[in-house]
């Protein structure tokens, strides 16, 4: 086991991460289809003039998009970390574990049945679908008393995802032309065109999830010693696991509902963080909450400017391109580490 970085360095690192995030927020407000100079951005934030076109781009488009990236990023990072703690499995990622598929199925059914087309209205159903799928995958993988086999869990996620996406969602999409049109623009995984309404939908869930996750941090450390030891040390294992499960579902479900399926953020960030902080969740969780928005916001800015012209790449594609090599490198290791 590698010696963890000293306390002072860990604290400083957190401050540096916050500074980078702030810088990235300003970049995100300035760059895009139309580049706006930083002084004008600050001007728009402090003295908003609705008749100035640059100002209105910053306030009506870039600010909601940036806020949403922060919320969704934090939710994905924390959701992934909690999922990994809960399953004691370094490969646990809400996208790979069928949570996205569950949210997608719930959303496609609401689109087909009620004709809802605005991503801002998907949060509730998305969370419900995510909860059901996460529970099913967890049971199918044969995870009992917290310890799960990484490969079994990934397989169960793949099986449930195949069943839901290949079978059920496809059936709806092939039969319902209009639902397919609404669904495909959500399914691509993007932050473009979102309003403050979307932000308001996600914010309470992310806020609650953040509080629950940080409150659990100390107990998760005890839990990682194994159930018997944790119980002997006075932890209420069942309760902790239930709270963590509720937090994961709220975080991942609301993020997926708002932005569509965005993979690998919840996998890569905790992995990188753990290498720096060591196995202490009181550090891993705050770091993940800062680094995941950095990754998502960075990917979103890259997605906006990468092709140069009017067309944007979806942020989900960018995170997949960044995250998949890390995942594959992890899978190629001789022995899969367990948490």
């Amino acid at each position: 086991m590698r010696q963890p970085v000293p306390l002072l360095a860990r604290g400083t690192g957190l401050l540096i991460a916050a500074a980078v995030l702030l810088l990235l927020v300003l970049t995100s407000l300035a760059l895009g289809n139309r580049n706006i100079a930083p002084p004008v951005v600050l001007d728009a934030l402090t003295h908003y003039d609705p008749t100035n076109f640059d100002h209105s781009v910053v306030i009506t488009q870039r600010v909601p998009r940036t806020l949403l990236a922060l919320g969704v990023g934090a939710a994905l990072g924390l959701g992934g970390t909690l999922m990994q703690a809960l399953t004691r499995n370094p490969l646990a990622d809400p996208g790979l574990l069928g949570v996205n598929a569950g949210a997608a199925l719930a959303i496609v059914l609401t689109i087909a049945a009620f004709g809802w087309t605005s991503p801002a209205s998907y949060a509730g159903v998305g969370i419900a679908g995510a909860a059901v799928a996460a529970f099913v995958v967890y049971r199918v993988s044969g995870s009992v008393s917290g310890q799960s086999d990484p490969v079994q869990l990934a397989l169960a996620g793949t099986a449930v995802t195949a069943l839901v996406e290949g079978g059920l969602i496809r059936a709806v999409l092939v039969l319902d032309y209009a639902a397919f049109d609404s669904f495909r623009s959500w399914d691509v995984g993007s932050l473009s065109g979102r309003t403050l309404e979307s932000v308001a939908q996600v914010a309470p869930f992310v806020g609650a999830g953040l509080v629950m996750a940080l409150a659990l941090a100390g107990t998760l450390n005890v839990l990682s010693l194994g159930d018997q030891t944790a119980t002997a040390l006075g932890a209420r294992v069942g309760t902790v696991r239930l709270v963590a499960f509720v937090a994961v579902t709220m975080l991942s479900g609301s993020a997926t509902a708002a932005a569509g399926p965005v993979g690998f953020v919840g996998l890569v960030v905790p992995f990188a963080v753990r290498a720096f902080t060591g196995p202490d969740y009181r550090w891993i969780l705050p770091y993940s909450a800062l680094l995941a928005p950095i990754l998502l916001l960075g990917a979103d800015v890259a997605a906006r400017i990468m092709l140069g012209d009017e067309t944007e790449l979806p942020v989900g594609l960018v995170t997949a391109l960044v995250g998949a090599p890390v995942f594959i490198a992890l899978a190629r290791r001789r022995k899969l580490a367990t948490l």
Partner: protein
Amino acid sequence: MSGELRAGVLRTGPVALRFSWRAVVVGVALVAVTTALSVVAIAASEPTLDVSKVVLALVGQGDYYDWLVVTRFQLPRALTAVLVGLALGAAGAVFQSLSRNPLGSPDIAGFGAGASTGAVLQIIVFGGGTAQIALGCVFGGLATALLVYLLAYRAGLQGYRLVLVGIGINAVLSSLNRFLLSAADLNLAQQAQVWLTGTLNARGWPEIWPVAVAVAVALPVLGLMGARMRLIEMDDELARSLGVPLARTRAALLVLGTVLTAAATATAGPIAFIALAAPQLARRLTGAASVGVVPSALMGAALLALSDLLAQRVTPGGQLPVGVFTAAVGGGYLVWLLVRANRRRRR
């Protein structure tokens, strides 16, 4: 297993073929089931037809109009289902035997996702016709499968690493597919969506040839290689000491399995899960110790014929692609397999 004990031996001159009676019974039963399902599917396809009319038309008797409908339009579709099923089942057995893993199917190795990307690119970006789509499909599938095998290879091919690398590559490609679908014209996107689900709709005589030739060539060869496959499933050292040329046998199996998968995909799109489920179901029915090519192929044909019948019956006009059913049935089967394996481990 009792079926293995009651083995029969067929001798002609220097060649002796050892077979299990139980496998023969299962094989004959599967052929009968597949034939019956195909006849029922043809009868169900037109309101004017019924089973007796179809049987009469197939033996060249009965009403001329019925004969025309059956042989011109419905028979090629039913035959395509059977041939694609044979190809996928046999290919699944080959890959599972090669990787010594019940999950070693071309789906898991990323063939399906790569084939989808190839087809979607042809439909949406290049606007290609049926032949180009089929080519794009085959090329995309082959390139992806090769990439997955190369990335997963590290001092030998281990099952879990193959699965995980496949999952990673799958995630990237499906993300790319969703982007292409969302950026395209709605009609093209819908067409691509149906194609990448895998469908037998509107398959006629001209489309049937690639898969028919592939099955006619590869299946008999694989059937004769059965004994060698049993040996290479064991330890490498053991197989070599028993005189099996390992590298050559593996390469031959890989080529044959890939040809079958590619032909099936070019004909019907990436139909999910038949290659995964058929060998395991056949193995359970025949009570054999390992997956056999011929029983797996017959099981694949029966499964696809059943799925196609369901696809035609559930929705009016039968617009639901058959891939929807195989994914639902196959995904459910995989879930059941995992649940059962875990329950046994816990005991």
